[in-house]
């Protein structure tokens, strides 16, 4: 842990130093291409002080964290069971997969008109957009987790006369859980990366809105501020997920070695 923190901290520090040197000291990268630390700090001052894109930073953060959390929860509550089902039942897989495959590559942006049509300009539409992107990794990883489950464990459970629900809860789910958690991580990430698209649905505030506005305004400093804040939020939520994972996978020796 401490080693990891030291190396990680050193890496981040090195990256920041490189950034400073490249943009500010040597001017290797012109400020038009990438903002300097000073530009970024100024943008940060603007968004925390007078505000930007309809609000100050904290408004944007609260709004987006709420949205992402909801979208993520809806996505995993639908995605994981669907993935488990498709992994378990070849019939379910054959039945659902073609539709799933066709719908999957459609970008969140393309869902926006339908989302507006079905759910208006409120939160539901934004959650729908996030859901479309975030549920796919949950499905696919849960699916792969089931497919990789040790066959003798399934046999042992069958031999013990395990009823289906118990089987799902106590064998399928924990057995697939290392992969399910991989999926959850990706789903969480997808939730954040779809935020920009989701907040195209008439958002008043939100980090996606900030990024959209900064993008329209070609405001590199503000784009970077938005990116950094999104990263911090995503990182914190992933860390929370990591804690849940460690708790859920305490039986797994490999997971303790892992991150």
């Amino acid at each position, binding site marked *: 842990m401490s080693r990891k923190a030291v190396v990680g901290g050193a890496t981040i520090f090195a990256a920041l130093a490189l950034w400073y040197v490249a943009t500010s000291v040597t001017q290797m990268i012109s400020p038009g291409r990438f903002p300097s630390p000073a530009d970024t700090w100024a943008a940060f001052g603007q968004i925390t002080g007078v505000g930007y894109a309809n609000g100050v930073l904290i408004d944007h953060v609260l709004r987006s964290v709420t949205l992402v959390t909801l979208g993520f929860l809806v996505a995993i509550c639908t995605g994981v069971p669907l993935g488990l089902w498709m992994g378990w039942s070849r019939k379910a897989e054959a039945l659902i997969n073609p539709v799933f495959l066709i719908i999957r590559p459609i970008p969140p942006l393309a869902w926006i008109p339908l989302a507006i049509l079905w759910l208006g300009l409120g939160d539901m539409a934004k959650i729908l957009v996030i859901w479309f992107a975030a549920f796919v990794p949950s499905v696919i990883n849960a699916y792969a987790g089931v497919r990789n489950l*040790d066959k*003798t*464990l399934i*046999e*042992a*459970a*069958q*031999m*013990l*006369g*395990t*009823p289906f629900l*118990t089987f799902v809860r*106590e*064998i399928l789910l*924990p*057995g697939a*859980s290392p992969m399910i958690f991989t999926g959850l991580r990706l789903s969480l990430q997808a939730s954040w990366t779809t935020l920009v698209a989701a907040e195209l649905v008439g958002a008043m505030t939100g980090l996606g809105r900030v990024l959209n506005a900064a993008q329209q305004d070609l405001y590199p400093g503000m784009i970077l501020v938005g990116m950094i804040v999104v990263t911090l939020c995503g990182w914190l939520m992933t860390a929370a997920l990591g804690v849940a994972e460690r708790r859920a*996978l305490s*039986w*797994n*020796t490999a997971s303790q070695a892992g991150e």
Partner: protein
Amino acid sequence: MGAIRFDNVGRIYGNKQDGFEALKGVELEIADKEFMAVVGPSGCGKTTCLRFVAGFDRPTSGMVSVDGVKVTKPGPDRAVVFQQFALMPWKTVRENIELGLRNKGVPRAERRERIDRILALMNLTGYADAFPHQLSGGMQQRVSIARAYVLDPEVLLMDEPFGALDAQTRVVMQEELVRLARRNPRTVMFITHAVEEAVYLADRVAIMARQPGRVKEIIDIRSIREAERWDDHEKIEDVMDLESFVHLRTQIWRSLRQEKAMEIA
């Protein structure tokens, strides 16, 4: 309740034409409450046969039935002790053993009591809350045995259950199994490599041969055991010293050795 029957059973791995013929024309009957040991060289298909009875696999020809009913799927009436333990790594020892009882709807208090008893029997007291990866191989195998025992099933299918046990535990378990089998007889199909173990435990011993896998010979132990009153002896060592025992043991051994010789020739 619990008579097992193999009817001209065959199993081909791969496609029917040029696949690998693991079993051919296996004929075997295990009577209700009979203890049948199965011995045979490695790879002769012992595990495969046992999996048919468990319902994990199906013969490609012939039929396997229990009480005249064709086996189609696994169930707790046919408890299995797996060669490779097959414990749920995410469940503690207690939870692993408990699952079958919960499935049967045994009430909580009784579950606890039965598990504590079996843990003590298996010399596992104190490990109830350990996870499988914290146990030694032998301990894991004992948990696996406990999981099957605790269900008190009609049919017990054991695939080299004592293979990973240490010598002393093994003897204790063998004696225990015999006691159990006498007191509360069950239909048992017991795969082992140890000929002495087979003779000591079984009513009959099926000797299998390879290429293709089949039942070569069945040796009746029970009549001799009863005639020679083996059960009067309490310790396994005493039984093993009896002339009748040694004779049977040598007979089976020779049959196996002969098989081996044939194969190498």
